[in-house]
């Protein structure tokens, strides 16, 4: 029924011993004075010993009560129920407003964020200036300030495209509030998006105020992937994936910059679609996809970067069965042509795909040739220990590697495209791609695997400098850009890069990766696909995922916060009691009452 804001201050109750000890311990030897009217004194003390004893007891009680009242006030004694004078003992209040992308969904004519923001204002309004308060948003940053300052920040609050992992945000807020030493109260205002509650977290003392209404219907684009980049002049294909609250097909419109609408189709949610598009002009292009507007607009549009370039010319020495067959396929598909732009198993004038020599004695000569070409990568000793390739973007599966050379890389400037046995196996230094094994079955199973032809296509593109767009990046998620990248240009402007440092995308849309003034890659920054699933967790699910949390609706948030704040603040009562004790003590200790 009672609680304390700062219970450790209860140690101050030991001060109660002071008046008791003063009362009990004999005082110093008093001065002596001759006084003839002794019988008057004796009569007086004989007549009122009980009254004096009572006064001394009252004096002791008032002093003890004074100490107790002050210590309890300092410890922030609270009463669970309401008190007539309102208020609560100082608490540490962390308010989490889930303004992640899903809060932009419109419900009953207004964004969900409006409901969350109003509830947050009420919660902060119920806080007192004595409280320590923080406001945490989807960016995960805890902002400290007075309730009024934080409420003012809510005025400019807008949905953020980042995803808020509710469990970890709650854990951080609890740690923050608990560290203050006061009663910690964490209020989470959220649309309770099911996908945001990704793990189970202890949430004692946490109030989860959720939007009780069911989520609005939504259809969103979660995949827009131009395939087989770069596209040739004959066009290319696009894979799309739509997620929706139901299975009803939705109209999808694809637009290429400079070409207008190039394709309209009906997309069926839950099943990937493969659409062919006509060829745009050569160079980097932006592909737009858009669905009909619904209550959640952020995932109704999506962009992708597309590289359009003619097939590179490759020079290789025919005679190797596996290699000949692979290039034949690529030529037939229009992915490459015979030419001098990329030299395979040789160091050419432009791009090169360099394999180790069959004769180990020629490795030194090859290394010297690489150095003279400005390539810092060197072939090391030949290794006959069988390993397998590690799973990666270029080689998803495991490929056996029987023989390879150790690759010696410079500290920076080299992109590792594939590894085997944890060591670099295929690397790129500028337009030179170096493979640590020869593409022969005696060296590796790659030539006889299904991954060989696509890998060869990619390697030729890398060597020719006509690689397609980088994989999509999710907003807010750090990613590593190519080693030569010096800046990124996106919808919000240009961002310089420290070499080797990860880049955190902060805006949705196509970004161009620059190396100096050259555009070396393009990529699309997208919404986290989980944000498109607006399905909300019910109270039971929330209680299961956040054990110990009090799950309420946004309308009940303030009442729950007041209750969790420990109810009524008894400090005014205690201070009044202390003042009363002080007056009583002064009255008792006055000349008529005596001071001992």
């Amino acid at each position, binding site marked *: 029924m009672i609680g304390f804001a700062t219970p450790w201050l209860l140690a101050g109750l030991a001060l109660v011993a002071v008046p008791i000890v003063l009362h009990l311990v004999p005082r110093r030897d*008093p001065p002596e004075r001759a006084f*003839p009217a*002794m019988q008057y004194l004796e*009569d007086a003390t004989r007549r009122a010993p009980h009254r*004096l004893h009572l006064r001394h007891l009252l004096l002791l009680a008032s002093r003890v009560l004074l100490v107790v009242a002050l210590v309890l006030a300092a410890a922030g004694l609270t009463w669970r129920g309401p008190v007539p004078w309102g208020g609560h003992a100082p608490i540490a209040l962390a308010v989490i407003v889930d303004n992640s992308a899903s809060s932009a969904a419109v419900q009953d004519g207004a964004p969900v964020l409006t409901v969350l923001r109003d509830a947050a204002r009420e919660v902060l309004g119920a806080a007192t200036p004595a409280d320590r308060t923080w406001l945490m948003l989807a960016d995960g940053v805890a902002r400290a300030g007075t309730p009024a300052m934080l409420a003012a920040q809510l005025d400019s609050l807008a949905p953020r495209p980042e995803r808020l992992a509710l469990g970890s945000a709650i854990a951080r807020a609890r740690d923050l509030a608990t560290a203050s030493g006061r009663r910690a109260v964490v209020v989470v205002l959220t649309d309770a998006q099911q996908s945001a509650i990704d793990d189970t977290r202890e949430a004692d003392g946490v109030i989860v105020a959720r939007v009780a209404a069911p989520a609005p219907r939504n259809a969103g684009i979660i995949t827009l992937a131009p395939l087989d980049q770069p596209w040739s002049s004959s066009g290319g294909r696009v894979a799309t994936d739509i997620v929706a609250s139901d299975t009803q097909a939705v109209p999808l419109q694809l637009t290429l910059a400079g070409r207008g609408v190039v394709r309209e189709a009906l997309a069926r949610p839950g099943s990937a679609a493969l659409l062919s598009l006509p060829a745009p002009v050569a160079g980097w292009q932006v592909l737009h996809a858009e669905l009909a507007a619904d209550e959640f607009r952020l995932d109704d549009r999506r962009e992708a970067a597309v590289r359009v370039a003619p097939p590179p010319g490759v020079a290789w020495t025919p005679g190797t069965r596996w290699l000949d067959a692979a290039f034949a396929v690529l030529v037939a598909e229009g992915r490459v042509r015979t030419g001098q732009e990329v030299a395979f198993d040789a160091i050419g004038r432009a791009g090169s795909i360099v394999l180790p020599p069959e004769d180990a004695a020629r490795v030194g000569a090859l290394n010297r040739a690489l150095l003279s070409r400005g390539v810092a990568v060197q072939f090391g000793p030949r290794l006959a220990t069988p390993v397998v390739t590690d799973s990666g973007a270029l080689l998803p599966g495991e490929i056996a590697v029987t023989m390879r050379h150790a690759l010696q890389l410079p500290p920076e400037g080299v992109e590792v495209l594939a590894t085997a046995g944890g060591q670099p196996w295929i690397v790129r230094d500028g337009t030179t791609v170096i493979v640590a094994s020869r593409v022969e079955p005696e060296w590796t199973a790659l030539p006889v695997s299904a991954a060989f032809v696509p890998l060869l296509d990619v390697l030729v593109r890398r060597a020719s400098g006509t690689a397609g767009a980088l994989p999509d990046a999710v907003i807010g998620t750090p990613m590593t850009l190519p080693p030569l990248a010096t800046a990124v240009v996106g919808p919000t402007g240009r961002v310089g890069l420290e070499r080797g440092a990860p880049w955190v995308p902060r805006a949705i849309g196509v970004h161009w990766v620059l190396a100096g003034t050259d555009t070396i890659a393009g990529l699309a920054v997208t919404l986290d696909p989980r944000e498109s699933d607006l399905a909300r967790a019910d109270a039971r699910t929330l209680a299961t995922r956040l054990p110990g949390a009090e799950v309420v609706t946004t309308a009940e948030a303030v009442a729950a916060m007041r209750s969790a704040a420990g109810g009524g603040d008894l400090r005014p009562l205690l201070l009044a009691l202390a003042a009363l004790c002080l007056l009583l003590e002064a009255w008792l200790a006055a000349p008529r009452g005596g001071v001992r």
Partner: protein
Amino acid sequence: MARLGGLDVTTAGIVEGFLAGQHRSPRRGFSVEFAEHRAYQPGDEPRYIDWKLLARTDRLHVKQYEEETNLRAMLVVDASASMGWRGAPERLTKLDYAARLAAALGLLLLRQRDATGLVTFDDTVRSITPARAAGRHFALLAERLAALQPGKGTAAAPALTQVVAALRRRGMVVFISDLLLDRALTMKALRFLRHRGHEVLVLHIADPGELELAPGEETRFRDPESGRTVTLAPAEWATEYRRTVDGVVRAWGTACRAAGIRYVLVPTDLPFGTALGRALAS
């Protein structure tokens, strides 16, 4: 004069000041009365020979006269140890105050040709000065009063009993004391005096420091007579003490009134003129 410590001068000033405010003659009732005959002895003044008796009896007798006053008064002064106390250095001790008051009363009475005597006592009777009306008697009284020093305990009853013996005829007894004594025993003696027809006046000498406890830190109070101690904080007991003192004063007043005795409380910060006025008020 020096022997009297200036008491006679002080007293004369007090009395003159007091009389200046009175409207009655201090010399009323003056007369000389024949006391008895005594056989003539060589050396007797011839003028005192009763010639008429000589003519009738043919024997020489001299007339013996007694100076008669209209009052015989006895001042009974308490000189116990408690009387030697004063609550503040700027005040007189109760004994000094009582001595001056007694001297003033004595001078006043003597000027009225009232025979005035003095009894001083502490735990026993220390001195008895028979009542005389002669003007020079004051010097003796003043000398005795000036020589008073605080004694030991207090035993008023024997002193008052001595007064009975000293005052054969009806007279006036002025009992000057701080009354820190056995009230029942003292009242019994006073009532006896009253029963013998004496007019009794009790002057209760009290230092203001006895009437009210001065505030201050906790103190061990010691009775100079008995040596008993009480330790207390004056501030705590001020009210109760004042109530007790009031009760004591009231009790003395009531008991005295019931016995036909006049009782006057005389704080030692009271001007002597005022004190005399209260004492002699009818």
